[in-house]
C-alpha cells in the first residue's frame, strides 16, 4: 500500500542465522506492528510500537526482537532463525483517534528458513 513498504519482499536464509526485516512508512503514524501469517492461524501479533523507542510484545514474540529509532522505521530481527519462523510477515501502521482506528498493511515479506 502507498505509504508503507516492507523489505525484502522475499528471503531465504539458513537456520541459525540472524535476519532483519524492515518496515518503512511515510505517513508519520505513531503506531507500527509486526504480524506473521501462517496457514490455519490467521494473523498473529509479534511486536508493536507506539512511538520511537516504545515497543511491546505481542502474542508470539519469542525469538523476535524489534527496534524503532525513528518514527518511519520499524525493524524486526530474528536473532537466530529457525524453521518454525518460516512465514509471511506483515507490517502495519495505524493512527488512532476517538473516531476509530484502522490498520494499513504492507505487502508482506515471505521468509523461508532452510
Amino acid at each position, binding site marked *: *500500500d502507498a505509504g508503507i513498504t516492507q523489505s525484502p519482499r522475499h528471503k531465504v536464509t539458513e537456520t541459525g542465522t540472524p535476519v532483519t526485516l524492515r518496515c518503512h512508512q511515510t505517513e508519520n503514524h505513531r*503506531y507500527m*506492528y509486526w*504480524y506473521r501469517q501462517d496457514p*490455519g*492461524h*490467521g*494473523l*498473529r*501479533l509479534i511486536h*508493536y510500537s507506539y512511538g520511537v523507542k516504545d515497543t*511491546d*510484545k*505481542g*502474542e508470539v514474540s519469542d525469538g523476535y526482537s524489534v527496534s524503532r529509532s525513528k518514527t518511519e522505521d520499524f525493524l524486526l530481527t530474528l536473532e537466530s532463525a529457525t524453521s518454525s519462523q518460516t512465514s509471511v510477515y*506483515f507490517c*502495519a501502521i495505524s493512527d*488512532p*483517534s*476517538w*473516531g*476509530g*482506528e*484502522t*490498520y*494499513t*498493511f*504492507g*505487502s*508482506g515479506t515471505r521468509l523461508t528458513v532452510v
Partner: protein
Amino acid sequence: LAKTTQPISMDSYEGQEVNITCSHNNIATNDYITWYQQFPSQGPRFIIQGYKTKVTNEVASLFIPADRKSSTLSLPRVSLSDTAVYYCLVGAPYSSASKIIFGSGTRLSIRP
C-alpha cells in the same frame, strides 16, 4: 479480549448479495467493529468500520444490531474479484494492540 467468531468459509455466485456475520459477545463500550479483506499474497485491506446501526460505503454495508454482540458485512452483487478472506475485528482506539485478535477470517469463494 474481544474475541470474534466468523464462519470459516462461504460460497456464492456472481451477482448475488453476500452477508458474512461475525459474533462478538463480549464487545466493550468503546470498541469499534472493523472489517478487512485479504487477497492471496497481499496484506489485509480496510473495508468498513462502524460503531452502531448501519454504515455504508462504496464497497460494502455494515449492519450492527442494538446490542452490538454481532455484526454483518454485506457485499452487494459480488464478482469473482471479491474472492478473498474477510476478517472481523473488534477493538477500541488507543487500547493495547495485543487485545485485537485477527483470527482466521472467512474465506469467501465466488463462482461464475
